[in-house]
């Protein structure tokens, strides 16, 4: 199986509990106004990566707590992501996933109205592998400073016993990666422009 990928970073603490491998998938039919990553909307962008190969990349990173699926919209590629997520779960890693779809749409993916943006039919199966799900579209009118959420309408679902809200209490707002070639900002900053100004 193959996954259309925008990018990844091997380590981040700003995209879920602990140190995490973060995967931004490519392609999003929801396209929330004010989205931080509009470059990930086009489904033909990014690069195509084999799910098994992706799992090998993740499992080669030492000392991480889990993976985070973000994007882009991970659940429109649920079928492609399944073998990858299964493999990393088998290795004991936790899974955090973001989606612009509400949880109800992910659960009934197969029954969705074909005219609307919809998750892949494998979305319920993927959801079963997720420990912590963040669901709902970004609504810039309800922009908020909340852990792992950009707007107050988005919901956190603790789908397994692995995490509780307490695990997010000390979550960083953002993380900045600097290597002299690239500067990257990730997380949920309330004041993105000011931080970007520092590193641009």
């Amino acid at each position: 199986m193959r996954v259309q990928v925008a990018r990844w970073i091997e380590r981040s603490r700003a995209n879920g509990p602990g140190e995490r491998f973060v995967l931004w998938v490519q392609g999003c039919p929801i396209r929330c106004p004010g989205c931080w990553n509009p470059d990930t909307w086009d489904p033909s962008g990014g690069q195509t990566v084999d799910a098994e190969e992706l799992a090998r990349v993740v499992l080669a990173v030492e000392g991480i707590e889990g993976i985070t699926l973000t994007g882009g919209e991970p659940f429109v590629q649920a079928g492609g992501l399944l073998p990858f997520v299964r493999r990393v779960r088998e290795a004991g890693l936790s899974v955090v996933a973001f989606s612009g779809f509400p949880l109800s749409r992910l659960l009934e993916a197969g029954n969705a109205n074909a005219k609307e943006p919809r998750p892949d039919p494998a979305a319920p199966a993927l959801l079963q592998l997720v420990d912590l799900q963040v669901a709902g579209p970004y609504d810039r009118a309800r922009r908020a400073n909340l852990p792992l959420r950009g707007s107050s309408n988005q919901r956190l679902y603790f789908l397994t016993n692995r995490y509780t809200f307490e695990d997010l209490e000390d979550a960083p707002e953002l993380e900045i990666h600097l290597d002299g070639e690239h500067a990257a900002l990730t997380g949920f900053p309330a004041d993105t422009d000011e931080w970007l100004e520092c590193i641009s």
Partner: protein
Amino acid sequence: MSAYVTLPTPMIETRHLVGALADLGFSEVEVHEEAVPLVGYEGWERNNSAHVVIRRKYVGRASNDLGFLRTPTGFRLIVSEYDRPRFGEEWLKRLRERYAAREAEEAERIRRSNEARRRAEEARRAEERRKLVEAQRRAVIEQARKRGYRIEELREGERVRLIVRRRVY
């Protein structure tokens, strides 16, 4: 009058040829842009001319000039029949070996010089990257201080991760 015999040589670079001749004991060598006539042991000009010339006084008392004529396929040794026993195939083989050694030495010098330049360029870029990262790091830390955020800094080689927190729930 003795005949001149020409032998092809695969040498094309004048500086390597002059160096190779010096290695074989001929440090007095004339190099000409245009070919000049070679002179015989009696002091008469021969019918042959050459771009690189070892005058007969440096070759031997009864010798003729030795010459190398530049051709599109490399220098050709021009040697009189009289001098050929001393400057025949065996001598030419040694000359070619010295030429090849000179050529290899220069290639090695160029390689080392390029390598040194590459390393210097790499070091310069690394220093630029380090300065940029430091400037960005300071700007982020200053911004965090002004806005009441806490910063945790992690370093992995040249990479810096700044983890920024403020919230209290």
